[in-house]
């Protein structure tokens, strides 16, 4: 597996963020290699989500921050953010619903067919017309994954997308996500070292105040990796050691 490819889908230079008088980061550089999954770990409150919101365009960058991004992003959060009044299919095409002026436009009909196929491949073919309230947590997060994939954006941002799920469902979702996200540029925030090692091509630990990014860990092999692979487990030990020192470096950092 080659290390960092030369093309960067996104690069962030000299990023600076002061929140409530506290400098979360200053002069932070981050590049996301094209077609790869970058995982970002670190203590709570270190500024991971703020960094992601900056890239998503949800927060205004502070000077001298420079963001060079190619096009728009698709965003998947910790909570599935399914709208309770829409069924599974309509939730999946939400982006197209929001961007279209007429609900019956031809374009969105095509997207609905697309979405139905995608949902069927994700094992939700039987639930297309159910409301989210009738689904389990794992199913809901699969719908959120389908919605994110259908957006078909050059960059996918994920903020602890599987943290609310039980261990087995989480492994299942990681398998699905690993397969479906192959070839896409992804920034994944997670608290779970194993999740990062299963899905990431490049793993970064964010620590300190102001925060910096450590040397990347670049596990070998295709994703999603086997969680019982000895190489993965060895890296997990290293990553946990780094996270431990990250916690001691970050004031108020919580595991």
């Amino acid at each position, binding site marked *: 597996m080659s290390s960092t490819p030369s093309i960067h889908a996104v690069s962030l230079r000299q990023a600076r963020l002061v929140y409530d008088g506290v400098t979360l980061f200053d002069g932070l550089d981050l590049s996301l290699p094209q077609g790869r999954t970058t995982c970002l770990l670190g203590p709570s409150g270190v500024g991971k989500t703020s960094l992601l919101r900056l890239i*998503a365009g*949800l927060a205004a960058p502070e000077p001298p921050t420079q963001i060079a991004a190619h096009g728009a992003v698709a965003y998947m959060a910790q909570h599935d*953010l399914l*709208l309770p*009044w829409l069924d599974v299919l309509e939730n999946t095409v939400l*982006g197209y619903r*929001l*961007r279209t002026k007429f609900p019956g436009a031809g374009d969105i009909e095509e997207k609905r067919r697309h979405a139905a196929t995608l949902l069927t491949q994700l094992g939700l073919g039987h639930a297309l017309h159910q409301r989210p309230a009738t689904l389990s947590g794992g199913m809901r997060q699969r719908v959120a994954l389908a919605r994110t994939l259908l957006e078909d954006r050059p960059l996918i941002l994920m903020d602890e997308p599987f943290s609310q799920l039980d261990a087995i469902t989480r492994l299942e979702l990681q398998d699905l996500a690993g397969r479906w996200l192959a070839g896409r540029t992804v920034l994944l925030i997670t608290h779970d070292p194993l999740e990062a090692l299963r899905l990431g091509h490049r793993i970064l630990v964010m620590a300190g105040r102001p925060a910096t990014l450590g040397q990347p860990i670049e596990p070998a092999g295709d994703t999603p990796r086997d969680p019982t692979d000895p190489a993965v487990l060895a890296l997990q030990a290293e990553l946990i050691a780094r996270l431990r020192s990250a916690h001691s470096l970050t004031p108020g950092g919580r595991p």
Partner: protein
Amino acid sequence: MNGLRLLVTLVGLVLLWQAIVWLSGVPAFILPGPLLVAAALLDRWDLLLEQAAITAAEILGGMVLGVALGMASGAALVQFAPARRWLLPLLIASQAVPVFAIAPLLVLWLGYGMASKIAMATLVIFFPVAIAFYDGLRRADPAWLDLARTMDASNGAMLWQIRLPAALPALASGVRVAAAVAPIGAVVGEWVGASAGLGYLMTLSLARGQTALAFAALLVLSALGLALYFAADRILRGLVPWQAESVAADD
């Protein structure tokens, strides 16, 4: 089972009423017994129905206008910051003025006909609907709005497709309150000055010592209010079928 319980309650109340009449021995023009009221109800049903239709039209007119204006104000408050700064304090201050105190003015300006009663009902309904809708629109989950923003949704699309449906449960609460108070607006309007309606019939028959007829009008008015509330409730439940209820409806 439910019907039986309701019947038992009603029979109990009627018996209690009759017992009070017997025991206290007050004359019928002060407190008529249930039999006298029932007789008035049967005797004058055509008159009562005619007046009820007028009051019902006033209430419904007020509901439609009040809900429409309340929703429009709620949406304006959320969409435009200047509206929030200028309109919201005015809206809240306006509630310090008792609606009943304005009733004579409305009759003076809009006349003895239905217009002044519809205006009264609209005034009573407007505020709970506007505030409930505004609160609902404001409390849409910010994470939903963030998601919509990353999807390049316009402000209008976010209002229509996210804030509005998210506000429907709150709006429904506001409309339920409105349905419960709407008859007050119409009837107060009729008391102050009218030539028709159940409120007018009540004041008129009380002045003539026909207390049983006034009671019959009151019963019809209560039935009207209940029907309005349950009809509104039924429609609102249909509008927000996704809202889970944690208390069973028939409990």
